[in-house]
């Protein structure tokens, strides 16, 4: 009896064998994100994160026309609050955007035939902050600078008695960009 008690105490006092140590649960690698921003528009994206600190995402975007956004994001700290560093590229196809472009740009109605549908793309770099768990739900807000290039189709029409024909308009802007994103890893 005494011997049995000693063996029990010894076994309890001894360190766990290496194989019996509690194994940390791996980080989930896949996620879904919903993002709104400018010039992103609304984006539903699929995220892949091979390590907790880096993530790549590709998403379907829609504003006035369909498009896509791809990005790479670094979150160096595995904590409830983490800074983020992000680079992305986006492209919107030329859809039926002409009417909205004309209204937003304040183009006089008689010049509307000179302006057609628009497509645009951009590169951007952002910094931000993410709140939440890398193993579940996070929300992030990011801002930075982007280079946006837009092509607006030209047209032909009679303006003030003059026949006017325009080639495609080209716009470029180095502009502030921002986005708010909600991401869930599973």
């Amino acid at each position, binding site marked *: 009896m005494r011997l049995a008690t000693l063996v029990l105490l010894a076994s309890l006092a001894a360190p766990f064998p290496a194989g019996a140590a509690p194994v940390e649960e791996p980080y989930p690698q896949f996620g879904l994100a919903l993002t709104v921003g400018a010039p992103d528009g609304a984006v539903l994206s699929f995220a892949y994160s091979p390590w907790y600190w880096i993530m790549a995402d590709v998403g379907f975007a829609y504003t006035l026309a369909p498009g896509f956004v791809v990005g790479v994001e670094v979150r160096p700290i595995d904590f409830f*609050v983490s800074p983020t560093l992000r680079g992305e590229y986006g492209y919107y196809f030329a859809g039926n955007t002409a009417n909205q472009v004309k209204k937003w*740009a304040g*183009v*006089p109605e*008689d*010049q509307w035939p*000179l302006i057609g549908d628009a497509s645009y793309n951009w590169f951007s770099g952002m*910094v*931000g*902050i993410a709140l939440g768990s890398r193993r579940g739900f996070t929300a992030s*807000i990011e*801002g930075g*600078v982007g280079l946006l290039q837009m092509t607006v189709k*030209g047209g032909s029409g009679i*303006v*003030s*008695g*003059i*026949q*006017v*024909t*325009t*080639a*495609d*308009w*080209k*716009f*470029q*802007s*180095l*502009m*502030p960009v921002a986005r708010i994103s909600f991401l869930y890893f599973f």
Partner: protein
Amino acid sequence: MKRNLLLVASALAVALQGCNTLYAEAEQPLVCLTLAPQTFAIPGGGTVAPPGGFTGTYGGAIDLVLSDAIPDFLFTGRSKDRILRFLSFDASVSGPPGANLNFITSLELTAAGAPGSTPVVLGQYARGSQTGVITSISVEPEAQSANLSDFLANGGITLSLSGSVSLAGGQPVPSTWSTTATTCLYARVHKTMQEIIDGT
């Protein structure tokens, strides 16, 4: 934490704005305007050319109402940041059979702004040894095409055509000649974000 982020973002924005780094550019590579038919008087015309032939001149002006034809944002902002260049001018006739511009031996196209501004020569045409029916005259830009945006910003552009005509003896000399004119231009404007915010 949010306040820190705001401070960082504000500092970044101030730095970028201070450097005028953020900007927007718009470019229209080719806008062509087909003007209403233009008629130019030939002093001494309306007769038959004498046996030795007739040589005369003509001239006229065309108001180019670009501000109605092209969005205003292309013509606002600082002078050095907006460009309007002449690309081409074509005068053509498409009237009844026999319509012919071969009596026009030269054409000079100039642009001027508000009264008192110095006109600039946009281009010239010389008939040379070309014979036969000529239904179209093209004026190409001078090598150093002038920036016309200041003209437009200060009250509009007036195109002036002038040149000479020549007809062989015995041919009828018209008192006027008419043409449909098309001119093409290039436009570009660059603005910083601060100028866009200020509306200048």
